[in-house]
């Protein structure tokens, strides 16, 4: 059971701050489940610019979409900001 936290635009799209998700082994399975649940808008945001952290670390530095999700893991999804 992982805790998924949504921030900014992802919170708008899902209408949730966070939720627990069961029965997924890795980020790929989690994202598929969330895309099925929240549709194209979620998929687009994810593809275009969302950052995914597992326990505060970007999945790009773990095993990207193959990053395994364990019990008690916290997955945070949010868009980046790059301007100043």
């Amino acid at each position: 059971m992982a805790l998924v936290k949504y921030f900014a635009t992802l919170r708008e799209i899902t209408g949730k701050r966070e939720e627990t998700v069961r029965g997924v082994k890795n980020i790929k399975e989690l994202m598929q489940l969330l895309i099925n649940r929240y549709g194209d808008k979620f998929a687009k945001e994810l593809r275009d610019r969302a950052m995914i952290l597992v326990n505060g670390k970007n999945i790009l530095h773990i095993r990207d979409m193959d990053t395994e999700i364990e019990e008690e893991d916290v997955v945070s999804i949010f868009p980046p900001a790059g301007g100043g």
Partner: protein
Amino acid sequence: MERYLRQKELVCQECLKNSSVLIAGVGGLGGFSSLYLALAGVGTIILVDQDVVEVSNLNRQVLYRKEDIGRDKVYVAAKRLREINPEINVIPIKKRISEEFDIPHRVDVVIDGMDNLEGRFILQEFSLRREIPYIFGAVEGYMGMVTFIDKTTKKLQDFFTKISQKAPQVLGATAGMIASLQTLEAMKYLSGKGDLLRNRLLIYDALSTNFMEVKL
């Protein structure tokens, strides 16, 4: 010291006076953070930017006026900050934040005012090399984020995905909000007060009026 009468119980004024803060990028974020630092009496403010003032800056960059268009930002900003607080030392450096970036001055803390990620990574490396904190800040749309990075914390590359986007939409009010948070982190650090945003990425979403914290 009457100038600082209304903050004397909040900060270590002597600490601020003896401090040197580097602000890299004097645009939306850096304009506000340099202004707040100057008002608060930070003794030395080093401004680094290579750009000139453009008309499209004027929606959010608080230090510039229409008649400044075409002038170097660092010199205009330095002049304004000295007018606002003649007691402080402002050092303008017209330079790009590139791999070779270095300056001979003492720096106690670095505040991010960059408008691109590449520059931010270089700035972070500069700070880590000098063993001084780097206060990350960025804005985009109605959203902004801040965190406090030093040798003990997670680094930009641990949580940030390098996404290149040209000239994002930015509001002055969002830049001001994020710059204000960055400045407060700097003043707390320099005064030895409070908890800093170490390993905590603070995201402000103005559309939903929410502060959100990601544990890094």
